């Protein structure tokens, strides 16, 4: 069951102030409407994982670990690897995150990140088959929110991409039906990947990368994923409001430009 969430997180005065600033093209942290907060990417921080990364966008922190293990392929793709994404909204990340099974926001986030990778075939699953129809590599991508200060979608996806781009896969040999893992490692085979860009609609203004106060004041959010060839690969609207068609068109254009900047950052960080 999906239920309207409480809108109690923010003072009316504060929300009105943010909306008023937005109408003048200003933000409470003095950013320009189309500026991201500072993005920091660290990779290789969890040695026991095949790959890992932490991305900070402003004060939002998400850490992603990639574990690659042998498993069974899906019956309809017997010669391909398996990709699975899970998101944990750990209680330490925000006072309102509770213990328990994943809630709809966590499920939505993990599915957005998953689709971003899956449709574009970012992970080359065709190269992860061990024994056709029987054994394959399963890539577990686990997203851990550490500190929620807005825009978990972008932070999680950038961290997942950074972790995957620096993931190492052990070489292996199959001898008499037994899988022998060797010590040599190869990078996880990756293809092109889309970069998500998230907008908030505040009053009648679109802004990029909402921080948590802006998320409480926004009427709706729109995430647009753009790949290396400037194609639209993913979209997701969230929130209680809506967008006019012209706002969506303009968001796509901005996302095409912005994704290039973010892509550069990720390539730098995962070199």
């Amino acid at each position, binding site marked *: 069951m999906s*239920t309207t969430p409480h809108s109690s997180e923010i003072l009316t005065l504060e929300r009105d102030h943010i909306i008023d600033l937005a109408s003048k093209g200003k933000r409470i942290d003095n950013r320009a409407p189309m500026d991201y907060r500072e993005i920091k990417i660290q990779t290789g921080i969890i040695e026991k994982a095949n790959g890992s990364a932490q991305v900070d966008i402003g004060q939002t922190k998400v850490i992603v670990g990639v574990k690659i293990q042998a498993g069974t392929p899906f019956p309809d793709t017997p010669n391909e690897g398996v990709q699975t994404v899970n998101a944990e909204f750990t209680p330490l990340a925000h006072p309102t995150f509770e213990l328990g099974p994943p809630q709809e926001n966590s*499920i*939505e986030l993990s*599915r957005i990140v998953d689709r971003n990778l899956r449709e574009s075939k970012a992970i080359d699953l065709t190269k992860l088959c061990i024994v056709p129809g029987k054994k394959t590599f399963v890539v577990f991508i686990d997203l851990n929110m550490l500190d929620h200060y807005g825009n978990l979608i972008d932070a999680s996806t950038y961290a997942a991409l950074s972790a995957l781009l620096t993931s190492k896969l052990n070489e292996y040999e199959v001898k008499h039906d037994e899988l022998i893992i060797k010590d040599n490692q190869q990078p996880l085979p990756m293809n092109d990947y889309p970069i998500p860009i998230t907008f908030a609609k505040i009053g009648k203004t679109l802004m990029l990368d909402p921080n948590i106060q802006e998320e409480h004041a926004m009427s709706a959010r729109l995430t647009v994923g753009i790949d290396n060839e400037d194609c639209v690969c993913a*979209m997701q609207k969230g929130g*209680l409001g809506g967008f006019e068609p012209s706002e969506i068109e303009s968001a796509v*254009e901005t996302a095409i430009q912005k994704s290039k900047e973010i892509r550069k950052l990720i390539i730098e960080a995962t070199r």
Partner: protein
Amino acid sequence: MIDDKGLRLDGRRPDELRSIKLQVGVLHNANGSAYIEQGKNKIIVGVYGPREIHPKHLIISDRAAIRCRYRMAPFSTDERKHPAPSRREVEISKVIREALEPSVLSEYYPRTVIDIFIEALQCDGGTRCASIVAASLALADAGIPLKELVSSCSVGKVKGHVIVDLYDLEDKYGEADLPIALMPNHNLVTLIQMDGKLSKEEFDKAFNMALEGCRKISNLQNDALKRKYKLESDTETSKDSKEEVK
């Protein structure tokens, strides 16, 4: 999947919707209800409310809360679906609720809940769109105050052709899937999702095709409501059809 006459596997043109049947007020107990058949999709929606809200911690002091559940019947798909809610159903419940929220005048009934129960009895692609179309009708049928009905439709791409209202096969083997929901009077898009790959030009074409599809479906929704409630014994037929007041 598209032949040389430009027709799709099921014989439709790229801009042609599946045949749609809409019925309003089909359930006795629910305050409002609607049923949609769109191609092989068969979806029934029941609405209860506004009613008292339990558990109390869900109460919102200045408006009605909206609760929405999208569920696929185990027999609705080719392979039997496990009855437990899947992550996909959880996400779809959320995006459907968020598609309908902007249309509901929820401030009229503070501290209550409006429950929307969607049962997809047979699924063949585009079920979230069909659900929104029926749910909007069910809300109106229940006497819940609405700004207007929400319409919904998907577009996609198959073999490089942009097409409207994908069915399951086209969704699975196509190159893009873009469902949207629209409040036509307000020109407000209340749901948009996309996965696949579309160039900016293809996106523009697809998006506009989807908006057009929503408008067509909106007319069908309005007809369905009027058909249901047109009473035989008709009303005072007045002398003039319009009145002008200066």
